[in-house]
């Protein structure tokens, strides 16, 4: 009877929650159906497709009737028609810049051996002529004349902007102060961007009309339909400049080289590509970003076709990159819709999940029980909160950051980027790192000997002293030198090694061994050994006390029976003391290992790693790289060392758990 009365309300909640579950699921399904059928644009906004393999593309230009031509790093000119290779022409010259005439009938390229070559639109050579230097960029104007930027050498200052007619006759040339990256013509005006980070305009007679500063060296200039100039620079900025040299707007878009700026033919939007494979669509009027896409295969090297619905670019990695314009322009609105969708779906999902839990009596009981236990534990959680906040912020977050940073290029000069295993590859080829590993191994071996053996001998001798008072005072006396702070101890040894007034050299002098005097820490041959020798006679207090503790813990009866058997001290040491203080030996061994792999403060104080790399250790390298702002590289050194430490730590715990081991 009692059970049925009690079951009544539970049954009704079960029914309610079942309805809630079905309702939430139904809503979820219909919402998603609506979304995928109606609200989501078909296809991806940016799609890529490989076109050329095993070669890099330097530049791509559009030709009329769905054709384009690309210049590859292997000096091929490849012509495509509606996406298929029409003509692949190997050029014996080393080409440096590519352009096409406004009517699309002439293709022109500059070479590094001072020539301009012109082809017709079937890639048959029409003419070639000499200019006075390596061509860096060129353009052909409506009249078929070429504006060419060229120059000689790197530190000469002999850089020119010139204009040539169809036959190659030079119409004028103007010497400019610096190597020119990009050039553009508009009627008789010439615009160019040299490496000194400026944009300049020349009048038809070659006189300078104006110059304006960019944020960095300009890499590309394109005129717009309205007669303005678009330019992108090495630091990711894009400028729109009117023909009078007034900046209409400028936008910092990325940290990388801007290799492509182009106006879409239809609606005045601007498409920009950087060296990081990012693509931006900007509003032509104010330069505001309306769409952005990252992680594309290669940097866009030229807009090769544009129609009302899509843009196609060619990338440095030889891919087609097609941008769906409607998708790009609707991206912001779509983003809002997606966020709202996600919110609603999460809400419905949680509702459905809790309703589901409530439907199954067993689960429901567990959930209620867990909730109650969580509530009952409030006080404990509150008391743990301060410590856990600190542990999470200062232990867990740095650990996660360290793991992440070691796979990035994180430094102060470049933008943060995921680089996979690059740091580790670089590390494996780093001579300083391997020199450091060699030194570290030597320090490890010697410190094991130093910290394992000497304190053990002292502990044995002190332990077996027959006079209790003497024993007590000797033990205390051996601890006294460790009152000197660690840093001071090292500074004292540095003083001892001092070439002028150091104790060691003075001692040699007095002993008549003056010829052995040395700049102990300044000589590549002795520096590391001097650091290892420091602290002589190496009676580490910690190890000494640990051994003493181990010996004190041995059952006296063992010693007594050994004494009755007439065991001599030597065999007692090997047969009783050593086996029974093995845990202590292992502990000290472990600490010596940790100290050698992780300790670099001493080396820093003694020599800062020098002279050369004579005393470098990986930990020190990590510290120096951190101080220098090379965080990604430093973190990868840290990770390598951490893996070594972790492997030994885990091995130690496993080994200790083996049955039969003390």
């Amino acid at each position, binding site marked *: 009877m009692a059970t049925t009365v009690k079951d009544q309300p539970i049954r009704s909640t079960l029914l309610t929650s079942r309805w809630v579950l079905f309702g939430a699921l139904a809503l979820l399904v219909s919402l998603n159906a609506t979304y995928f059928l109606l609200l989501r644009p078909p296809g991806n906004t940016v799609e890529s497709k490989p076109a050329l393999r095993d070669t890099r593309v330097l530049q791509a230009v559009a030709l009329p009737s769905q054709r384009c031509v690309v210049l590859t790093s292997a000096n091929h000119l490849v012509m495509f028609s509606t996406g298929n290779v029409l003509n692949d022409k190997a050029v014996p010259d080393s080409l440096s810049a590519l352009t096409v005439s406004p009517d699309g009938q002439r293709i022109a390229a500059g070479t590094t051996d001072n020539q301009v070559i012109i082809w017709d639109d079937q890639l048959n050579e029409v003419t070639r002529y000499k200019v006075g230097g390596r061509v860096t960029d060129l353009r052909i104007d409506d009249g078929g004349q070429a504006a060419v930027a060229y120059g000689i050498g790197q530190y000469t200052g002999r850089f020119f902007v010139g204009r040539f007619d169809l036959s190659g006759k030079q119409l004028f040339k103007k010497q400019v102060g610096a190597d020119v990256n990009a050039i553009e013509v508009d009627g008789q005006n010439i615009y160019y961007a040299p490496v000194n980070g400026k944009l300049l305009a020349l009048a038809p007679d070659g006189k300078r009309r104006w110059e304006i500063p960019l944020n960095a060296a300009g890499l590309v200039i394109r005129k717009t339909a309205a007669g303005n100039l678009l330019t992108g620079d090495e630091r990711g900025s894009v400028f729109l400049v009117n023909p009078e040299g007034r900046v209409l707007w400028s936008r910092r878009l990325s940290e990388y080289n801007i290799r492509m700026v182009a106006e879409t033919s239809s609606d005045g939007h601007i498409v920009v590509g950087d060296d990081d494979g990012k693509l931006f669509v900007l509003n032509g009027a104010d330069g505001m970003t309306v769409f952005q896409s990252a992680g594309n295969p290669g940097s866009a090297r030229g807009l090769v076709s544009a129609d009302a619905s899509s843009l196609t670019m060619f990338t440095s990695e030889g891919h087609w990159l097609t941008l769906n314009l409607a998708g790009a322009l609707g991206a912001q609105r779509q983003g809002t819709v997606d966020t709202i969708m996600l919110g609603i779906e999460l809400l419905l999902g949680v509702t459905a999940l809790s309703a589901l839990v409530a439907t199954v009596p067993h689960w429901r009981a567990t959930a209620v029980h*867990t909730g109650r236990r969580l509530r009952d534990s409030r006080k404990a959680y509150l008391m743990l909160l301060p410590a856990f906040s600190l542990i999470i912020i200062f232990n867990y977050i*740095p650990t996660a950051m360290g793991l992440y940073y070691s796979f990035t290029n994180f430094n102060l000069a470049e933008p943060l980027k995921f680089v996979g295993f690059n740091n580790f590859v670089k590390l494996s080829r780093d001579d300083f790192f391997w020199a450091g590993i060699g030194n570290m191994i030597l320090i490890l071996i010697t410190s094991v000997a130093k910290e394992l053996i000497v304190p053990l001998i002292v502990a044995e001798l002190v332990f077996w002293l027959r006079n209790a008072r003497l024993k007590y005072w000797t033990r205390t006396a051996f601890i006294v030198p460790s009152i*000197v702070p660690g840093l*001071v101890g090292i500074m004292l040894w540095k003083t001892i090694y001092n070439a002028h*007034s150091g104790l060691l050299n003075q001692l040699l002098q007095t002993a008549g061994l003056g010829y052995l005097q040395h700049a102990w820490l300044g000589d590549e041959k002795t520096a590391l050994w001097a650091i290892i020798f420091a602290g002589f006679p190496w009676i580490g207090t910690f190890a000494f006390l640990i051994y003493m*503790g181990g010996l004190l813990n041995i059952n006296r009866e063992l010693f007594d029976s050994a004494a009755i058997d007439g065991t001599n001290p030597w065999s007692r040491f090997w047969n009783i003391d050593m086996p029974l203080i093995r845990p202590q030996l292992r502990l000290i061994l472990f600490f010596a290992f940790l100290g050698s792999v992780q300790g670099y403060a001493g080396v820093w104080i003694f020599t800062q790693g020098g002279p050369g790399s004579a005393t470098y250790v990986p930990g020190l390298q990590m510290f120096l790289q951190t101080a220098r702002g090379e965080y990604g590289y430093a973190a990868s050194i840290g990770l390598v060392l951490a893996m070594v430490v972790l492997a030994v730590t885990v091995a130690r715990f496993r080994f200790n758990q083996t049955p039969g081991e003390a």
Partner: protein
Amino acid sequence: MARRYFWSNTISILILAVLLLLSFVPVFMMLSMSIKDSLMIELDFWSPPIPPVWSNYSRALSDLVFPAIRTLSVAIVSIIGITAISCIAAYTFARLQFFGKEFLFYLVIFIFLVPGVLTLTPSFVLATQLNLRDSLSGLVIFYIGGGQVFAIFLLRAFFQSQPEEMFEAARIDGAGELRALWSIAIPLARPILITIGIMNFLGIYNDLIWPLLMLNSRDLQTLTLALQNYSPANEKMPGRPDLGAIMAGYAFSSVPTLIVFAFGMKYYIEGLTSGAIKQ
């Protein structure tokens, strides 16, 4: 038989005496040079420090007293922070029953597996991002954060060994958990608290690498930073550092550790020799 013991004992004493003497060499050198005229150190290294030149100490003191005060205040505030926060957490783990207790404790001791080399660089980046660099309080916050895990680990074991009946009685008398912690657990945990205090003091007092990264301003230098490039000019020998004053500075900076050892030596030695920290 007795004769053999006599000889082996004598040889032991002799070896120990030699080793003891050798390990005191740097200390003797420091003390004798610290009361010697700097010119005499350079010209006649072996001359005895007679008469003692105490002005070395006044010079070193005037140079190093502020860095020393900074280091001591950083150490004291950090130790108070570490023990206060870790006591509460350790007590919670040792005395309270709650949901997820084991999991949360594993979360704490998992940090033992993370070597310090892994977190140095990211901690530095974190300090930059949290705007904690170049300030002593930033240094203190990192020491408090970094000292938690070991302190919780040691204190929890200690609190667990205390008999539950005492706490039961306190609760019956109406004491809250914090009251029981403050009035019963902490007073009884004095030895382990002193051990934790000493360990952290030595760690913070001797730390060079972290202050070196964190602090740039000269007027924030801690004692180790000031000492590692302490090189006052020698007025009598231009171009050479004043070795007497430097050694006096080293001796001066050993005073705080001397005091700590004098007070805490008993606990320190007991802690290490009792086998409490064996594995």
